[in-house]
């Protein structure tokens, strides 16, 4: 250690004599050298006169450490003018590189001692924690680098990389509902097959949930064991979870009973210092070149380049991540494939059951991605409140307390309300109803249907997640790319090696640094190839009020090389849209055959499978009328110019935080009624000029629904069209946004009437709120036109009239569009 002149001495000082010579031992607080300094003092004599005298004071300089004297940088007579001047090199017997509980692990001395000689506290020498399961053991930077070099060499030798694995919703899913135990005990239950391998455990020190003996039920992602088995040949795996240590260990015991995959490499919230973020530097402080992460959330990793984002594993619907209340709130995803999670008790037609089934294989991999809102079990929190909470989340104790309470609430609500059981009961009811209606159908039509299909009760749990296959494929690719690159660099460098040997630098030292590729470079490169050259526009996907460019989706797709733009332009290649709603962007994009209008599933597929998936199955049907026969077709170029000029329409359509929870059959019945209505009115409308394109869209919808293909999205088209209008209004100032939000909120109350009029579940849906807010933002342009329609809505209870109103709305909007 190099000793420097400390601050606080009376500079300048002049060295008188060095007390020790080179290679002599010195002990702490023994004198190193003597010096003198000069100072002016006031001196009095016996006559009472005072005068200022310059005096010399001798002093000793004490050594602050034990050791052996190395090189002296000063000699007798040297004048030191200030602090920070090199004095002497002292070789310490122990540099305290590893410290345990502030004790040096090498010499056993207490590192916290501070005295008059302490220039730098010994505890500050070792500040890095690289241990998974202990926060008391700290090492110095040097030691950490050394350790990492070691493990790097070992891993390269074994042809392995490091893999950091998240637990909750990545490889397992946990719930606290004891319904699971009951289902497990009952082989008759429709969910028995799915839950029979669920394992439960209790935590002894479960004081979080003030509920005695809380049971946790852990479902492993299907194929987990094989996954670990295969991946462990390519990766050394670590667990990194935001759950407590006890929980993490209990889960590890379930997923890895022999400890052969993870060993003791388990890091939990207790050792993470913060509960907001996960960072690789906690485990790999100096070098993250060979680390890959799998996690279902990217935000808590700050969108790290090492991250392989995996589809969420959501086995128990509505259970969410029980350990997520400590994490920052997830940006809410608008789910496109809104499956009937809360089936409203209504008259089901039997095609519904089929639909639910057949849509399953299609959304197998995508299903996990449609994150059911994490806080659904809390239920009461609106989006706004959640945002407020997430904004105010600092590290204050109140917040922590609140988080603890929230977690408690989630757990308790799972225990008491038992959402799964409720859902299953609902499903059972529905099944029964379906069976009855089917019987009715059978007797009516007299034809034999596949009645065995309905013999078993539907289960709420689906054991069909295939996310791990996708993950494994990605991991395999990364591993292969990494070691190909490594091999290439190594052999490539072999030739130059001789020159190198002849040259100056030691080749051994350079080799590791140069040959080892960086995952942080490789992975983004691989990912960027996937959607390179795509320019993507989101429409109806990202909730209002979020900056599109920094939304979760945009960041995600951007990491795959796609560009995200705000408006439909010539460069646009894909529009990712909400199939339930026809936004202006979709309509605009529909005029260009080269722009593919796809649903969000396409993006999920691309981003999870790391390949450009064929768009065809994900295309959103756009009617021929909108495609070709649009009256604005000749305005194309102008239109584009206008769009380009429109200032940043960086906010998407208003999203009601409440998902539309109309069941399929509800839609169906609505559609049927609508169809009837349309049949009546078609003649009159078709005769008139075709300047309202929505008429066409409805007619098209009619044709399609007649042809047997059920397109429930289409039936809502009429209201959606107008809903889209607000995306045209350029909203760039926040005040504007706030005004709009306020307006939306104001309107919600009156709109509930409308919804109850059409006998849906009574929740305001985005579709129904759409028209009003849309018009509100048309700078009052459309207000006059639209209002009569709204008036109609409120006056008349009949569905036909209501649909007529919606019809008129779209009509007027079509005109509004034309005016622009």
């Amino acid at each position, binding site marked *: 250690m190099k000793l420097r002149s400390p601050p606080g001495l009376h500079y300048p000082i002049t060295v008188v004599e060095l007390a020790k010579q080179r290679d002599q031992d010195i002990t702490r607080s023994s004198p190193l050298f003597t010096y003198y300094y000069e100072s002016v003092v006031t001196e009095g004599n016996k006559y009472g006169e005072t005068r200022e005298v310059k005096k010399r004071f001798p002093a000793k300089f004490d050594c602050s450490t034990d050791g052996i004297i190395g090189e002296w940088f000063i000699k007798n007579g040297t004048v030191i003018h200030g602090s920070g001047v090199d004095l002497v090199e002292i070789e310490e017997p122990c540099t305290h590189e*590893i410290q*345990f*509980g*502030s*004790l*040096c*692990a*090498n*010499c*056993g*001395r*207490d590192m*916290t001692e501070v005295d008059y000689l302490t220039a730098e506290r010994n505890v500050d020498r070792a500040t890095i924690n690289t*241990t998974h*399961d*202990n926060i*008391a*053991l700290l*090492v110095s930077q040097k*030691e950490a680098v050394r*350790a990492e070099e*070691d*493990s790097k060499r*070992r891993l390269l030798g*074994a042809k392995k990389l490091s893999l950091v694995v998240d637990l909750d919703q990545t490889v397992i899913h946990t719930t606290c509902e004891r319904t699971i135990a009951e289902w497990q005990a009952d082989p008759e239950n429709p969910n028995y097959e799915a839950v029979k391998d669920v394992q439960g455990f209790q935590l002894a020190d479960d004081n979080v949930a003030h509920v005695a003996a809380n049971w946790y039920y852990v479902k492993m992602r299907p194929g987990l064991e094989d996954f670990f088995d295969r991946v462990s040949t390519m990766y050394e795996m670590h667990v990194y979870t935001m759950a407590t240590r006890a929980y993490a260990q209990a889960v590890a015991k379930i997923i890895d009973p*022999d*400890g*052969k995959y993870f*060993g*003791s490499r388990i890091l939990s919230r207790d050792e993470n210092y913060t509960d907001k973020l996960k960072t690789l530097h906690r485990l790999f402080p100096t070098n993250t070149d060979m680390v890959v992460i799998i996690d279902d959330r990217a935000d808590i990793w700050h969108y790290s380049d090492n991250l392989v984002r995996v589809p969420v594993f959501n086995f128990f619907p509505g259970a969410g991540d029980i350990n997520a209340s400590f994490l920052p709130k997830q940006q809410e995803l608008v789910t496109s494939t809104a499956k009937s999670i809360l089936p409203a008790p209504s008259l089901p037609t039997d095609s519904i059951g089929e639909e639910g089934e057949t849509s399953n294989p299609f959304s197998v991999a995508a299903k996990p991605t449609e994150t059911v809102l994490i806080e659904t079990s809390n239920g009461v929190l609106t989006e706004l409140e959640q945002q407020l909470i997430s904004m105010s989340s600092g590290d204050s104790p109140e917040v922590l307390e609140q988080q603890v309470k929230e977690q408690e609430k989630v757990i308790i609500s799972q225990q008491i309300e038992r959402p799964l059981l409720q859902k299953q009961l609902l499903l059972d009811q529905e099944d029964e109803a379906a069976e009855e209606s089917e019987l009715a159908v059978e007797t009516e039509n007299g034809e034999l249907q596949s009645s065995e299909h309905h013999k078993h009760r539907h289960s709420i749990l689906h054991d069909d997640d295939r996310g791990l296959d996708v993950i494994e494929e990605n991991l395999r690719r990364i591993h292969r790319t990494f070691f190909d690159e490594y091999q290439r660099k190594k052999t490539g460098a072999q030739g130059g090696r001789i020159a190198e040997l002849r040259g100056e630098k030691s080749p051994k030292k350079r080799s590791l640094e140069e040959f080892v590729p960086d995952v942080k470079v490789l992975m983004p490169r691989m990912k960027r190839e996937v959607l390179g050259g795509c320019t993507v526009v989101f429409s109806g996907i990202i909730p209002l009020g979020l900056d599109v460019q920094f939304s979760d989706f945009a960041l995600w797709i951007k990491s795959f090389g796609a560009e995200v733009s705000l408006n439909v332009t010539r460069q646009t290649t894909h529009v990712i849209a909400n199939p339930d709603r026809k936004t202006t962007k979709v309509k605009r994009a529909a005029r260009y055959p080269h722009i593919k209008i796809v649903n969000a599933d396409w993006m999920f597929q691309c981003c999870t499978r790391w390949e450009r998936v064929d768009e065809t199955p994900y295309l959103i049907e756009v009617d021929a009328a909108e495609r070709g026969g649009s009256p604005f077709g000749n305005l194309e170029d102008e239109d584009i110019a206008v769009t380009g000029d429109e200032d940043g329409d960086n906010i998407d359509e208003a999203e009601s935080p409440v998902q539309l929870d109309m069941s399929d059959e509800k839609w169906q019945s609505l559609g049927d009624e609508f169809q009837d209505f349309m049949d009546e009115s078609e003649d009159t409308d078709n005769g008139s000029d075709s300047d309202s394109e929505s008429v066409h869209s409805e007619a098209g919808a009619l044709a399609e629904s007649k042809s047997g293909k059920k397109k429930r999205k289409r039936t809502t088209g009429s209201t959606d069209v107008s809903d889209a209008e607000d995306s045209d209004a350029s909203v760039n100032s926040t005040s504007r946004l706030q005004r709009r939000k306020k307006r939306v909120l104001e309107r919600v109350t009156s709109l509930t009437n409308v919804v109850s009029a059409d006998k849906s579940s009574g929740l305001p849906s985005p579709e129904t709120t759409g028209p009003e807010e849309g018009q509100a933002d048309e700078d009052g342009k459309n207000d006059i036109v639209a209002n009569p329609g709204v008036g109609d809505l409120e006056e008349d209870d009949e569905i036909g009239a209501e649909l007529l109103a919606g019809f008129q709305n779209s009509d007027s909007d079509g005109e509004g569009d034309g005016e622009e």
Partner: protein
Amino acid sequence: MFFLKELEKTIQLHPSYFGPLIRSHIHRELLTKEEGSSTGKFTIVCILDSFEISDGQVIPGSGYAEYIVHYKAIVWRPYKGEVMDGVVTSVIRSGFFVDCGSLQAFVGRSMIPSDIKFDAAATPAQWTDNGEQVIEKGTNIRIKIKGLRSEVDKMYAIGTMKEDYLGPLQT
């Protein structure tokens, strides 16, 4: 090292416990609260039966009664240089952790004889000389305390294995 030590403890008792069984309540309270606790200097291992309870005093405002209890207990206090047995709880590259009762100790790499090497490839990871000495999670081990530090309710120790007769115990 174990000691017999006289200690004093103030116990507050809820009014609902006032009654003929009050002494046993105090006894129970003392046992549950004190036995196994660590003061940072020593750990209370076992409270002996005979103890004196002062007269109770009701605290104004709360209704609780306060008793001062004098008791004797067997306490354990580790010393620097003491040899003790413990169980290995975790094995890492830079050493291993040992639990000696209430004391957590760490044995660093420099405190392990040089013929015992770390083997990361083994499951679970272990320190071994490829002979009969194997240190893995759960191994009983004898170490000597090299350094000791106490915080308010916790003690940390650095152990060494680099002397005669120290190391894994044959079972």
